[in-house]
């Protein structure tokens, strides 16, 4: 249609003429002009509804009462108050969080009010624990403990087995998540001779049936329960102590020394020696209190204990 128009009417020109090339001066399409005017109307409406004009050290916040947001806020001392304010992004955010919490509140309230054992026994509630727990775990725990909670040698323990560094009861797991942990072992390279550390390594490997030299392991045992003072943390039976997070050395679960991924007696001995000599100074689990809400920590505790596998 526009082509027809062009063919039947002679457009006006601006009068500019460059080497015989003339510039048309067609009017803008009417719909476009109207669109332009509508943006002005939109702007004025916007001024009336939203924070807009700066005036001195303040700014207009829309016509009072015309466009408001009501939300429920929690004060620093835990009281809930309802407030109404002019429209702004942060009030809108509060309102959205209220709506979101309303969806989950009944479940989280139930988790908060119920004992660990009763949450675990409530099949319907556990459905919520499992889905919310999976999300919380992926966001916060998986970077160290990995996606399925299988842990990472040299970084973070496996959460799916029955061995628990700091204890696997509900209360112990809860304390671990809420307050964090700091697993440390002092280095022994300055207090023990190299061949003593070798003997200890053979003994430690013998405890879990790994390849070792029995003669060296026997000397290592006397060191372990004597001058090496290993027993003070790992216990005379080398079974560890969850109160201080010392490892059970008699099982086949390894966190710091990569025994599983190492083949050959020599390499395994070297791996254990590395830990005895250098110690462990990086077994840090961060504190989640403050970053997560108390009910989220409680839910995660049940998720880790029941779904991944707690102390049984």
């Amino acid at each position, binding site marked *: 249609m526009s082509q027809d128009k062009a063919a039947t009417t002679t457009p006006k020109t601006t009068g500019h003429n460059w080497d015989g090339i003339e510039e048309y001066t067609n009017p803008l399409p009417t719909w476009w002009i109207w669109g332009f005017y509508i943006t002005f109307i939109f702007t004025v409406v916007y001024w009336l509804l939203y924070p807009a004009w700066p005036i001195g050290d303040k700014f207009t916040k829309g016509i009072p009462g015309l466009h408001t947001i009501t939300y429920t806020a929690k*004060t620093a001392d835990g009281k809930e108050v309802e407030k109404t304010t002019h429209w702004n992004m*942060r009030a809108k955010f509060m309102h959205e969080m209220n709506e979101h919490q309303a969806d989950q509140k009944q479940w989280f309230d139930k988790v908060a009010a119920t004992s660990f054992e009763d949450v675990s026994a409530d099949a319907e509630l556990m459905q919520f624990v499992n889905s919310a727990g999976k999300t919380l775990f992926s966001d916060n725990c998986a970077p160290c403990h990995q996606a399925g909670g299988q842990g990472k040698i040299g*970084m973070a323990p496996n959460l799916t087995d029955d061995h628990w560094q700091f204890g696997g009861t509900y209360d112990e797991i809860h304390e671990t998540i809420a307050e964090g942990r700091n697993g440390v072992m002092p280095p022994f390279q300055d207090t023990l001779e190299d061949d003593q550390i070798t003997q200890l390594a053979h003994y430690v490997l013998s405890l879990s049936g790994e390849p070792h030299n029995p003669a060296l392991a026997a000397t290592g045992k006397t060191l372990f329960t004597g001058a090496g003072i290993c027993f003070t943390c790992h216990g005379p039976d080398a079974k560890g102590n969850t109160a201080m997070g010392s490892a059970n050395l008699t099982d086949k679960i390894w966190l710091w020394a990569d025994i599983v991924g190492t083949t050959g007696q020599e390499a395994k001995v070297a791996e254990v020696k590395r830990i005895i000599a250098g110690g462990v100074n*990086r077994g*840090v689990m961060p504190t989640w209190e403050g970053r997560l809400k108390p009910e989220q920590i409680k839910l995660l505790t049940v998720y880790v204990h029941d779904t991944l596998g707690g102390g049984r």
Partner: protein
Amino acid sequence: MKHDKIERNLGILLVFTMLAISAGGMVEIIPLFFIKETVEKVEGVRPYTPLEQRGRDIYTREGCYLCHSQMIRPFRDEALRYGHYSLAAESKYDHPFQWGSKRTGPDLARVGGKYSNDWHTQHLIAPRSLVPQSVMPNYPWLATTELKYDDIQDRLKSLRRVGVPYSNSQAEYQRNVEEFGEDVAKTLHIPDAQKNLEAQAQSGNYDTDPSNITEMDALVAYLQVLGTMVDFKKYDDDYFVKFR
């Protein structure tokens, strides 16, 4: 003035184009300098310590901002994943700010304290050893490159020029003691910058290797302070609404 005249005169066209463009920018930006509520009144925000500041320099040098933002917007999904939305006050000492505009990796505005130092060190050396699906490049040289900090005083002096309250005189130090308390004020004193940097690197054990101060120490120290300065527990959870 006739359109004709503007279009035929390049100089005038240039001046008018610039005026038109800057008017829009100025109208949006300048009022923020005067509106008192732009920067929220909140306790705890302080300039970075010398070690954190060097870490921040490395953060910008390596271009972390190209994939990581430091700006949690007041949206539900962002709050659920990253934590409390970012405040203007939290980046008031940032030059340049690291808000970013692109998230290939996650937002880092509140990464401080979320992971252990050891995690950050290993993750920066080889991200996929911890997060298999990550597309972040490896930064192994951070752990082996000794941190250059003989110029730390000059760096802090430059920041002081653009308004960051590092102290270079006893009077300025006293002012910082009043504003931030003695412990923080000590770390902001330019003449002690070298000493403070070394002390923090030694006590913080950021790259889990206490034998030397590497770029890893500085970068992890910086990452561990991100978003941790304001204690949100002290405030009503809608306290920051009234500033908007």
